[in-house]
């Protein structure tokens, strides 16, 4: 009997040790969606009919191998989304620009920014590409905002039915002549949108332009794709959309009531990194090198063909079918920031605006807002711009 008790105690203790060991973060581990290293992803993509890309990729990798320094490469765990904002990371990896510059990208793709944030909290992410959810990365997980790299405002819009009362009048507020609707026609209406994202910011700006607030309408939480299904089947009065879903709406039946563009709202995607990675002195050079390569990619993407091919490849890697002709305008309308852009425009404007908005609607506290501003650091960007000017602008 005593022996049995002893065995039970030993087993329980062993189990507890394993449980506690499992609680610790180990740097390696699972993520939300596909966890395919970038080179594998690139290899999968090139398995298609893109022989040119294959040759380009092989060339890039060969060059990288030839130029690779003898010392060990710094591995950077990069979290991406299966969207346009993340293609620079794929392109760097594909071209071998990472190995060439002393670091190695290990790309993991997530379905949503919230998944990246959870992985960030678990210590599984070094650098990541993210949209509005980046504010939570800074306020909750103490991530560092490095810079905004892509103007993704195009296509962020709300649809209405062409025969609705909102479509009857345009330009109620003279500051926004392209915006549909009046306070009377919009009051009491329902909006389908993914709450807590850029769509909510856009809604609030629209309501403010009409002299209304969230209390005057009904906001219903729904992602853009189900919102499209619900809207075309007759539900709700406004539906949020963005590329690529936006193109599904029949232009004869539906109108864009308001958008980031016609409300003059800057909306950029961002590059952030974990606090731990940022403060690791041994990885600082690699971080600067990565940012420098991101600027170099923006330069390469000025060639529409390179940009389009990379976008199609990225969709392919992530299992999304697309027609290059149909998505071309979506891709080209969302440019990446080049050296000139980053030295002339305020690329932080969008991130600050989102953070301020989150504080106003109560998604984050004032204390958190301060933390977000504190976590916006342009030191790495400045170094990367200097390095880029020295290396590529001679």
């Amino acid at each position, binding site marked *: 009997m005593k022996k049995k008790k002893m065995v039970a105690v030993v087993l329980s203790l062993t189990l507890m040790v394993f449980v*506690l060991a499992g*609680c*610790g973060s180990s740097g390696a581990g699972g993520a939300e969606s596909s966890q395919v290293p970038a080179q594998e992803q690139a290899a999968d993509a090139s398995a298609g009919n893109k022989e040119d890309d294959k040759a380009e990729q092989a060339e890039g990798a060969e060059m990288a191998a030839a130029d690779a320094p003898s010392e060990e490469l710094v591995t950077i765990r990069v979290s991406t989304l299966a969207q346009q904002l993340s293609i620079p990371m794929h392109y760097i990896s594909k071209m071998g620009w990472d190995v060439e510059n002393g670091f190695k990208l290990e790309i993991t793709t997530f379905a949503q920014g*919230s998944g990246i*944030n*959870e992985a960030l*909290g*678990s210590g599984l992410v070094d650098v990541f590409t993210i949209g509005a*959810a980046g504010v*939570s*990365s800074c*306020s*909750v*997980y103490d991530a560092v905002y490095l810079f905004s790299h892509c103007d993704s405002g195009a296509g962020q819009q709300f649809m209405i039915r062409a025969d609705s009362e909102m479509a009857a009048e345009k330009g109620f507020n003279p500051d926004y002549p392209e915006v549909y609707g009046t306070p009377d026609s919009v009051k009491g209406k329902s909006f*389908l949108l993914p*709450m*807590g*994202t850029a769509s909510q910011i856009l809604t609030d700006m629209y309501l403010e332009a009409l002299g209304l607030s*969230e209390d005057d309408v*009904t*906001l*219903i*939480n*729904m992602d853009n794709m*189900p*919102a499209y*299904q*619900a809207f075309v*089947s*007759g*539900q*709700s009065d406004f539906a949020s959309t963005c590329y690529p879903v936006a193109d599904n709406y029949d232009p004869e039946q539906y109108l864009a009531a308001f958008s980031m563009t016609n409300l003059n709202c800057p909306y950029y995607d961002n590059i952030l990194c974990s606090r731990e990675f940022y403060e690791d002195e041994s990885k600082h050079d690699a971080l600067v090198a990565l940012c420098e390569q991101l600027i170099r990619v923006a330069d390469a993407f000025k060639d529409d063909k390179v940009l389009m091919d990379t976008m199609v490849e990225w969709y392919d890697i992530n299992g999304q079918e697309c027609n290059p002709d149909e998505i071309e305008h979506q891709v080209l309308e969302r440019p990446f920031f080049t050296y000139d852009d980053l030295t002339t425009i305020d690329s932080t404007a969008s991130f600050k605006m989102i953070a301020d908005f989150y504080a106003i*609607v*109560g*998604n*984050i506290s004032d204390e958190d807002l301060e933390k977000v501003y504190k976590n916006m650091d342009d030191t790495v960007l400045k170094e990367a711009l200097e390095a880029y000017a020295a290396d590529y602008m001679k």
Partner: protein
Amino acid sequence: MTKQKKLFAFRMKIISICALFGFFLFWYLVTDVWKLAPETLLPSPLKALETGITKWSVKKPDGSTLPQHIFASLRVSLLGFCFGAVIGVPLGIMMAWWEKADMCLKPVFDFVRTIPPIAWIPIMIILLGIGVVAKASIVFLSAFIPCVVNSYTGIKSTKKVHIWVGQTFGASKTRLLFKVAIPSALPYIFTGLKVSLNSSWGSLVAAEMLGSDSGLGYMIQLGRLLCRADLIIVGMVVIGIMGTILSAILDFMEMKLVKGAV
């Protein structure tokens, strides 16, 4: 009840309370004392309690107070559960009692039961829109399956000897069903109802993915989006409490309605 039995029941209750207390103590030790998990990933029970108290009256950040969320979720889950029970139990009984009904409905039922409720969301949007009825339908789909399965099994498990006795005394088939089969199947039916109740709360988060502006599932989803683990924990705990209360009500009903139930 004898004094000894009362003492035993009391001891069992004390053990249950201690187990619950132990769970919360372990959680407290892991988060607040040993600091094994960061607060952003697993907030302490005290932090969750504080958030729960605040949310009772504060709408931020998700637009509704906790009572509003509870009411919205109760409405959806109870509506789905009630429809599941009202349709599922008679359907299970009918399939078990009438062979022709079994032959007709079982293949369809076996096909439908394997489809996860979340997969129905796009169809529900098109068929029923995004209102309470659509959400309750998602809950219904997960709630009615255990009701059918358990009612079916309960009726099928009726002892042949009881049927024979009824037949010997000249009972009609309908009388046999109501006086012999259903009463003997009641423990199974109640078990089905309890499983169904759990399923209905389980599918609540999926149901509230279908266009919501309030509800515990909605609160959990928004908590995830905003990295508010404390909100998620509050939602989970409240769902747990609601489920326990409703299960206790079902236990009480079973005790009153089923002969021999403890």
